[in-house]
């Protein structure tokens, strides 16, 4: 069903983003950022509404002869799959638009900084929306590059520091290599399908070998952008150095756009799935989830830690996708669809709670200029609202009921538990191992966020700026509060969301999860009522009832006073313990570091001089095992072909001529 309103809203969103970008450059300085973020808010809201409209069945498509090449017009397609991700982009950038003006308060007199940030933020969001909306590979790649380049300029925002420039360059390099892989992947599909439009690619008939080649290219390309291990190295470098609201967009939304690309490419365009792909995706996803959370545990830079958690959550999403491919390819559409829906649900959840956590980290950064956990402490009393919202984020990302992260992990587990219906022994035994890794990941994530919350928000501050932290301004609180509320709602009312999400598998495979919501809004029954059920609203009501009854009953006790006194500490402390005596983030994870020691590159030093000094560096094993060998190979190859570089123009011209001749011979 083609809806002109949805199309108009989509256009409105895109145009408003262009306006916002222009305004950032030419707009007047005084209060300019409020207008900028106001326009961004409108654009985000219209994207959100358009996306929801598409999910509800009001799709849209258009062709633009004016754009693109004369024989290769740009297409815009807003189907339910695109609609879901468009709504996701709109949702998170809505929260970011509320959060932004106050966050950028310190830059209010800096015309260049605001212009720079505003211009590229608007282009970044525009790029992401266009990627999702693109209806052909040409428009897709242009939008993809727009997204990559705009985010590069946002990462390099604080370019005075060499480390930031290095991080941004690494990001740009990997984004470009990833883009190349995607381009080649589209090339394979386009040559078989006879056109760059997605409709033509969908019709392409590929041999299994070529389909696998296309899949491999897409997996590497999109996996690089999504941050799958071992292609994640740019992520923990780039996300921390960007301004926090941009980190929220990058981690919460841009990684999802890469997931969108993967889903569109594999589930929609290639079409005929092969179970071996699912095994690869599942294995890489599991490793990413586990390694992501283990490395996150070792970090004490809050934003870096959150970036590693993105690796973990992307891993969880790809576990769902891998399960989906395996089941769909083995002729089990119902669990397959469940795996895909679990992955989509986790996309939404991760976008919500990760953006929430990044905005929280930004709030701390805003008031105390501190990213290091070891110097935080006691922030719950200094900034209660941010503390509360951050707690919601921690509970959600740790997959605890009744919050949203739990629902998607539960759905992923339910998919994995259908492994008995598969034929091959490889898959049947691989899936339980992946499920075990997912369970381990969840438990470790909880450990990590106990660490984060306990060290940063509880007890006493460990440094002067944190001790003087001030409550968060209203706009920033609104942005975080919106996301926190949505985290809770998405956890308590999963049936409603699943009904919305159902449009995506309906579009892709003509089959949905009809049984999941068959027993009313209260009961989530993904496959059947007998297999499993979960009633999140009842859980919330029961928890609240226990609390209220308990409080009411205890109020009636003879003694219900609370006396506030010094901590007891087993009688050891003669007075109140000092802040330096509390457990640090590094100390908290020491037991886990000891158990999983082989997986890290540890550099631990104890200097015994006048005073004992302890130093610990945790390096990423991926550098030594993957990147450095690759770098060595490239260097060696470059040396080998270096003899071509003779410095004589004649030789170069000869080479160019030869290449031309060979190419002409090839195509003749």
């Amino acid at each position, binding site marked *: 069903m083609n809806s002109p309103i949805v199309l108009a809203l989509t256009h409105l969103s895109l145009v408003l983003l262009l306006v916002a970008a222009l305004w950032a450059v030419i707009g007047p300085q005084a209060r300019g950022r409020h207008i900028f973020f106001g326009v961004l808010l409108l654009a985000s809201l219209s994207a959100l509404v358009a996306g929801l409209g598409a999910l509800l069945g009001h799709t849209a498509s258009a062709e633009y002869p004016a754009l693109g090449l004369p024989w290769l017009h740009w297409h815009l397609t807003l189907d339910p799959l695109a609609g879901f991700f468009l709504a996701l982009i709109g949702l998170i950038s809505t929260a970011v638009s509320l959060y932004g003006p106050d966050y950028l308060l310190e830059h209010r007199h800096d015309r260049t900084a605001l212009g720079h940030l505003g211009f590229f933020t608007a282009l970044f969001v525009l790029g992401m929306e266009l990627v999702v909306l693109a209806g052909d590979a040409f428009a897709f790649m242009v939008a993809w590059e727009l997204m990559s380049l705009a985010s590069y300029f946002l990462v390099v925002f604080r370019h005075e520091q060499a480390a930031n420039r290095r991080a941004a360059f690494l990001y740009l390099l990997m984004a470009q290599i990833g883009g190349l892989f995607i381009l080649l992947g589209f090339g394979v599909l386009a040559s078989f399908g006879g056109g760059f439009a997605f409709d033509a690619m969908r019709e392409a008939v590929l041999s299994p070998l070529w389909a696998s080649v296309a899949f491999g290219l897409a997996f590497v390309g999109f996996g690089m952008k999504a941050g799958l291990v071992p292609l994640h190295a740019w992520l923990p470098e780039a996300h921390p150095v960007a301004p926090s609201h941009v980190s929220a967009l990058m981690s919460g939304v841009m990684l999802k756009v890469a997931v969108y690309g993967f889903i569109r490419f594999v589930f929609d365009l290639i079409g005929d799935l092969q179970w071996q792909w699912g095994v690869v995706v599942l294995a890489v996803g599991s490793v990413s989830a586990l390694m992501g959370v283990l490395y996150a545990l070792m970090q004490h830079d809050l934003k870096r830690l959150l970036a590693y958690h993105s690796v973990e959550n992307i891993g969880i999403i790809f576990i769902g996708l891998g399960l989906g491919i395996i089941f769909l390819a083995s002729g089990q559409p119902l669990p397959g669809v469940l795996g895909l829906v679990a992955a989509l649900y986790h996309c939404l959840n991760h976008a919500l709670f990760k953006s929430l956590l990044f905005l929280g980290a930004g709030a701390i950064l805003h008031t105390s200029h501190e990213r290091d956990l070891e110097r935080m402490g006691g922030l719950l009393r200094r900034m209660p609202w941010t503390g509360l919202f951050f707690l919601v984020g921690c509970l959600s990302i740790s997959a605890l009921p009744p919050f949203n992260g739990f629902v998607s992990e539960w759905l992923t587990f339910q998919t994995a538990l259908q492994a008995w219906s598969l034929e091959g022994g490889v898959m049947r035994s691989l899936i339980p191992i992946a499920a075990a890794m997912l369970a381990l990941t969840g438990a470790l994530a909880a450990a990590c966020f106990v660490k984060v919350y306990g060290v940063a928000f509880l007890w006493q501050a460990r440094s002067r700026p944190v001790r003087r932290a001030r409550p968060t301004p209203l706009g920033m609180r609104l942005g975080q509060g919106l996301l926190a509320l949505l985290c809770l709602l998405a956890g308590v009312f999963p049936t409603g969301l699943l009904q919305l999400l159902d449009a995506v598998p309906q579009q892709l495979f003509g089959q949905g999860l009809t049984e999941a919501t068959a027993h009313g809004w209260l009961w989530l029954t993904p496959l059947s009522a007998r297999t499993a059920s979960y009633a999140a609203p009842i859980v919330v009501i029961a928890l609240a009832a226990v609390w209220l009854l308990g409080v009411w009953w205890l109020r009636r006790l003879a003694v219900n006073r609370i006396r506030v006194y010094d901590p007891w*500490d087993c009688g050891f402390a003669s007075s109140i313990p000092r802040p330096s005596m509390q457990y640090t983030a590094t100390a908290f994870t020491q037991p886990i570091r000891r158990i999983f020691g082989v997986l890290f590159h540890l550099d631990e030093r104890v200097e015994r001089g006048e005073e004992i000094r302890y130093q610990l560096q945790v390096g990423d094993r991926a550098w030594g095992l993957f990147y450095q060998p690759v770098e060595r190979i490239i260097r060696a190859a470059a040396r080998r072909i270096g003899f071509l570089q003779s410095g004589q123009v004649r030789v170069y011209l000869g080479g160019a001529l030869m290449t031309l001749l060979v190419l002409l011979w090839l195509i003749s």
Partner: protein
Amino acid sequence: MADLLNSPAAWGLALVQGLLFLLAAPLLTAWVRRVKARLQNRRGAPLLQPYRDLYKLFAKEAMVARTTSGLFLAAPYIVFGSTLLAGAVVPLLAVNLPTAAIADVIVLAGFFALGRFFLTLAGMDAGTAFGGMGASREMLVSALAEPALLMAVFTLAMTAHSTNLSSVVAYQLDAGLVLRPSYLFALLGLVLVAIAETGRIPVDNPATHLELTMIHEAMILEYSGRHLALMEGAAQLKLMIYGVLISNIFFPWGIATEFTPAALLLGLVAITAKLALLGVLLAVAETVLAKMRLFRAPEFLNMALLFSVLGLLSHVILEVGA
């Protein structure tokens, strides 16, 4: 599903079962202590002692460290509430109760995780070294124990094609006694997890406050009065839940499948006998074994995880096709 959910009698029974859980939990703890005392040639406290302790704690004034935040006061309610909720969904006397449909076994693990999250945060809130140490160790233990728990129950869930605890138990009843290798592994894994998660010897020692290796007691060190009572109550409930899980999933015989007084009475007698036996076994194990060093605990837990995964693998490889 609908007929089950609309039956008020079933809901009433479920409520009674939850209350029974609540009331019986201290008794199980007392029983274990009593048997242990006898094994050590002591007379031991009477079986009502934990009730008296809880009553005493509720009657006392609560002391709160001035370095804590609001989370410290809220945590006992959340810990207790989530543990009670976990207890409410475990089939104790009868299967097919409506509460079992609210949450399956993954949600059960989630309830435990929720309680643990707030327990550890509360331990860290006062900022004392003991609290941080206990929290760090608890997270270490649970990070390894939680996957082992899930894998152990997944073995049964895959056999029964359901993660619903009630369905699993009902399936076991129907299938009768079939000795499968996967069950044996899962049982071993679950027992080890239960020992670790309820803080028993050899992982933790519930009877000590002043030992550098302590875990659970270190986290609740700053609590007193009613807050301590709630925390202690939650720990007792947790022991009971694990006991019921082990006895009713692996040895479901006697549990009521229909809601008649005779069947329910039989169910009550059966679960009492099973828990009493388990309590004796636990007491014997705690008397014979010594507490391990903390860094031996991961080996213990890795063994639990290994058993559970082996159970799951032997199920999918050996038993599914056959």
